[in-house]
């Protein structure tokens, strides 16, 4: 470990200027904060968090739609735990549950499908939020529901994919990213080759990183070495789990159930081709269609800077609400609520006054 930190220092010196690396994976955000590894990095190397938390980049209108659904008498909302506390315009799923709405936390979409089988008189709607690591599991649930003729299961789909988002971030002149730490588990599914366009088009190094603190430090070392040697390639630090091509079975399943669509990323706006929509063939499992869901424009607190924080353009400390009106017990925006949110990490691990 010490040797690695030393190497990082030396390589940074060779590079000769300050660098900013961005990670785009909620788990990387968490590992970086929990292990305190930023303190081991020299001042010339900055690790910035990007839009890696799928809950955080979900548009608030989606939350409002889910909340409206949970108020319908025959609907059970099944969701990953993180979404439950995120505030929509007026309320949250957690508050609605306290007032009597049927909201269940599940660990897996297969649990949601099981719930649908056990409660045939109710419509079970699974909140499909997540990137390429999670999307195949929802695809599986829809595929099984189709195969077994389950009538009362559907997904309110807000799945997103990484590559187009990373492309958009690189267009942002303000951000000036020098290298990407690429998401580990997303890459298990997609394969490392999807990042090659970044190196070819923008001449920026990319390293796919694993999830131990050791992995993240090693990946930073690899990025610095590329910069020092004038290279811009995709390297794979997480080679124990990631290969070039990814998980073929998962990709086939995703392709069968989903097709790319435009998606709204909180704080960034519409990114063409960055979302996943359920194909027409499986429309009966698309909750938006099957249950006639209306998406309305949501009201967001104008002082909330989650959007800028998610792009890596601002730190939580730049937000006037941070640590004052907005805290983990009284969150205003998703970055504070989500277990992988940057504001929550800052608040819990680096303190309000840091």
């Amino acid at each position, binding site marked *: *470990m010490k040797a690695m930190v030393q190497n990082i220092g030396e390589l940074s010196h060779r590079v000769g200027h300050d660098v900013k690396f961005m990670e785009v994976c909620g788990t990387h955000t968490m590992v970086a*904060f*929990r*292990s*305190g*590894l*930023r*303190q*081991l990095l020299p001042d010339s190397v900055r690790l910035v968090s990007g839009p890696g938390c799928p809950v955080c980049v979900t548009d608030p209108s989606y939350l409002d739609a889910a909340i409206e659904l949970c108020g319908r008498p025959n609907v059970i909302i099944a969701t990953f735990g993180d979404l439950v*506390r995120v*505030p929509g315009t*007026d*309320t*949250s799923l*957690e*508050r609605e549950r*306290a*007032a009597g709405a049927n909201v269940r936390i599940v*660990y897996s979409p297969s*649990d949601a499908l099981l719930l649908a089988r056990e409660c045939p008189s109710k419509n079970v709607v699974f909140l499909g939020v997540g990137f390429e690591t999670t999307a195949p599991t929802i695809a599986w649930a829809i595929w099984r529901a189709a195969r077994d003729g389950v009538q009362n299961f559907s997904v309110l789909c807000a799945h997103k994919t990484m590559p187009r988002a990373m492309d958009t971030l690189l267009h942002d002149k303000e951000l000036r990213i020098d290298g990407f730490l690429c998401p580990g588990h997303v890459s298990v599914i997609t394969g490392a080759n999807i990042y090659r366009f970044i190196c070819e088009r923008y001449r920026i190094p990319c390293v796919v990183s694993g999830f131990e*603190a*050791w992995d993240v*430090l090693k990946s930073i070392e690899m990025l610095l070495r590329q910069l020092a040697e004038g290279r811009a390639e995709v390297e794979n630090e997480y080679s124990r789990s990631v290969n070039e091509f990814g998980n073929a079975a998962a990709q086939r399943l995703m392709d069968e159930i989903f097709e790319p669509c435009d998606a709204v990323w909180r704080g960034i706006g519409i990114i063409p081709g960055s979302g996943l929509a359920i194909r027409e063939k499986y429309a009966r499992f698309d909750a938006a269609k099957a249950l006639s869901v209306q998406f309305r424009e949501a009201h967001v607190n104008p002082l909330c800077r989650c959007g800028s924080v998610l792009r890596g353009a601002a730190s939580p400390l730049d937000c006037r609400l941070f640590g004052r009106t907005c805290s*983990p*017990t009284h969150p205003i925006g998703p970055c504070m609520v989500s*277990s992988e949110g940057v504001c929550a990490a800052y*608040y*819990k*691990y*680096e*303190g309000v006054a840091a």
Partner: protein
Amino acid sequence: MRRDRILLAHGGGGSLTRELIETLFLPRLENPLLKSLDDSAVLVMNGQGHAFTTDSYVVKPYIFPGGDIGKLAVCGTINDLAVMGARPLWLSLSFILEEGLLLADLQRIVESIGTTAGEAGVQIVTGDTKVVERGKCEGLYINTAGLGDIVAPNWLGAANVKPGDAVIINGPIGEHGVAVMSQREGIAFQTSVVSDCAPLWPLVKAILDTGAEIRAMRDPTRGGVSAAVCDIARASNVGIRLHEDALPIGREVRGACDLLGLDPLTIPNEGKVLVFCRAIDVAKVLAAMRGNPIGKHARVIGEVSERPPGIVTLRTTIGGERIIDMPTGEDLPRIC
């Protein structure tokens, strides 16, 4: 967004519980004895100090590896007395039973209460039984209140800890919470972790008998070690630093936490005690603890300093530093 209802997290023993106490209860009930918000109230009657405490038990399921709600109802309350330096003597026992509860289950639980109290040298001296309609409580809820004689020569309290003190724990953390979670319906997850539920008085007595000046003791139940240490840091206005590589966490508990996405520091324990003592007393306190069956793995896990006041930090295994914050309380409902 104003809050107008109780949420599950209000029962988690973390920041929401504290907020409820400070904004709703204290302003209406305040008096000097309540204000310290220690594990028990200290009452002086006829010149003798007594500790008095109460707890309710809503653990689901009510039978779990290593114990049941009965054993928990005895240990949880007598341990709150023990950590104030009081020998537990008497308990009250109130039941709220669900119509339809199996008498065999109730019998097993009462036997458990009897056995645990007997072994702890505590008498159940008064009680009550109520029954509510089917569906209005899951099986049963128990409340116990306890009274004990203060034996410790000096005041033990959350506000008593000073810079330079050491933080000691008697053994591995997270066992009770994981054991209960493994039985929760819908999580479908197995482990051989057993609750550490046990009376702490014999261990506490051994510590007090060393003659060391103990500043405070705390049993890290709801909210885990995080909540307990945050409470102390705040009440004493000191900085506390824990060392990640000194924290005793069993391999199986770690595996369970990985699987469930939980932080071992926030998981409730029912047979653990955090001891805050002067640095010069560490050797004799550890020796006394290690001589007791539930103190065999006792070790120092941190130290107290002047700064940053009121904040708890963790030195991580890779040498970084991060803050340990008060857990919000929604991860683990109905664990105690």
